[in-house]
């Protein structure tokens, strides 16, 4: 966990308002766990708070990593204007990430994502693939135009897609697809990242599964557990909380109250 001025290698618009930024720097060496995030400073002095952005993929051989983000406000707009050779102030990698060490060749893994929650699942899928497990993806998007990485995911497993407006794949949300598949197959592990509604559905369907994980998002200030801005209550004791930046962003199902 360090801070560095990383260099932009590439910037690409994947879909309207969805960008993929490739960075290079020494920090990449530390990016070994899927599901971790970087805390990125917008290149303008008056924007004080860093933006937490998950790692979409890491390429150790070329010392580079990719971030996929949606332009939501002025900070992310500024990210999208960065061009190759620009420098960007990065802290990280932060957070705990998705555990994969227990997986083997016989295992079936469900990877479930929605919208801008999909990016960290790509690096995760690469790690799961290395374990030899079979992957089934359930990915939901608002509409056809904002779908990204469909082909990339398809190279690693079976992909089920849904759109809210029915413009592509199954109409509706990811939960609809899941309920049907679950009657036939039971996975060894489930990983998810997306809207609160999606996470709630996964939390509900896989409450008893030993390896079922949710990656949460929150407004945060420090990104490292010092400011207590991004807490969520624990299910075991509502008076206690976990910090999403530091003790998360990945939690087991049943661990926290969404």
């Amino acid at each position, binding site marked *: 966990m360090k*801070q560095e001025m990383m260099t932009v290698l590439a910037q690409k618009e994947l879909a309207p308002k969805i960008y993929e930024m490739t960075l290079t720097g020494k920090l990449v060496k530390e990016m070994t766990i899927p599901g971790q995030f970087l805390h990125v400073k917008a290149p303008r002095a*008056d924007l004080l708070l860093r933006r937490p952005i998950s790692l979409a993929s890491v390429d150790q051989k070329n010392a580079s990593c990719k971030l996929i983000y949606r332009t939501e406000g002025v900070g992310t707009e500024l990210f999208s204007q960065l061009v190759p050779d620009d420098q960007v102030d990065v*802290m990280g990698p932060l957070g705990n990430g998705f555990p994969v060490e227990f997986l083997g060749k016989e295992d079936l893994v469900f990877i479930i994502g929605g919208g801008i929650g999909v990016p960290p699942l790509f690096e995760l899928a690469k790690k799961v693939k290395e374990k030899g497990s079979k992957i089934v993806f359930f990915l939901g998007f608002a509409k056809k135009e904002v779908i990204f990485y469909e082909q990339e995911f398809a190279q690693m497993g079976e992909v089920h897609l849904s759109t809210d407006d029915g413009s592509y794949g199954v109409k509706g949300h990811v939960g609809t697809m899941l309920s049907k598949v679950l009657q036939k197959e039971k996975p060894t592990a489930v990983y998810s990242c997306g809207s609160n509604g999606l996470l709630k559905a996964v939390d509900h369907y896989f409450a008893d599964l030993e390896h079922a994980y949710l990656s949460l998002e*929150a407004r945060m200030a420090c990104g490292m557990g010092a400011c207590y*801005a991004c807490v969520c209550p624990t299910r075991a004791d509502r008076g206690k909380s976990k910090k999403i930046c530091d003790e998360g962003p990945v939690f087991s199902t049943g661990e926290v109250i969404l």
Partner: protein
Amino acid sequence: MNRLAVKLPGLNLKNPIMPASGCFGFGKEYSKYYDLGLLGAIMAKAATSEPRFGNPTPRVAETPSGMLNAIGLQNPGLEVIMKETLPSLERYDVPIIANVAGSTQEDYVAVCAKIGDAPNVHAIELNISCPNVKHGGIAFGTNPDVAYELTQAVKKVAKVPVYVKLSPNVTDIVPIAEAIEAGGADGLTMINTLLGMRIDLKTRKPILANQTGGLSGPAVKPVAIRLIHQVAQVVNIPIIGMGGVYTVDDVLEMFMAGASAVAVGTANFTDPYICPKLIEQLPLRMDELGIESLEKLISEVKGARK
């Protein structure tokens, strides 16, 4: 001679830079980034008699050159802080200023009576200015009589010097500062955050779950400078200044307004290394400005007031 050294009641600071309360947890998180022994002191996160969960989320929102927070004094309570948190910092050569908050005078007195027993707690910062809690906090810091009475009650039981943290959310800060000095406070810390609010245009609702929060960051620095200057004219106890400090120039401006040490808050979130950077850069800037030592600067500023 250490030209950065500053002597305050209970605190022999090797340098005047310390992270402000609430912006540094209890120190553990930043110890992964650098040696906490480099710091002048640490103002720990607020301690209350019982554990506190704090406010619902979202608890932070960005503003132009600032941020709003409504954490709500989340902490594990005095017992855990005494048993686990403070002892874990004993290995660092750094004095702790324990921030104490409460809902009632009895709460404040109970925590203040005990927290000085920790060997690394060298002073108490009495938090009577938190804008984010319904009971206590700012209610104690906006009325001179209440502030006087609380300071006096705490001074009777505290085993270490007591610094009282002032709120900027008052019409006139001077009578409050005077009342706290009359109540026996050893020093003042100022300023706490300014009460603010932001509204999300899409949802048409406040961004913070608590609706309002405390504004901090460079946006508040001129307010802090003005209030420190105002209070320094009327009190004889030292002031630890804070509010939007990001650079060594901000640090020295605080001294010139009347502060005797400086705390860094929001800047820790932007740059986790900000405190050691300021400590390193301070002597260079002092050279450029012809400042021999901070103690000398403090006495010059005091002398100019008379």
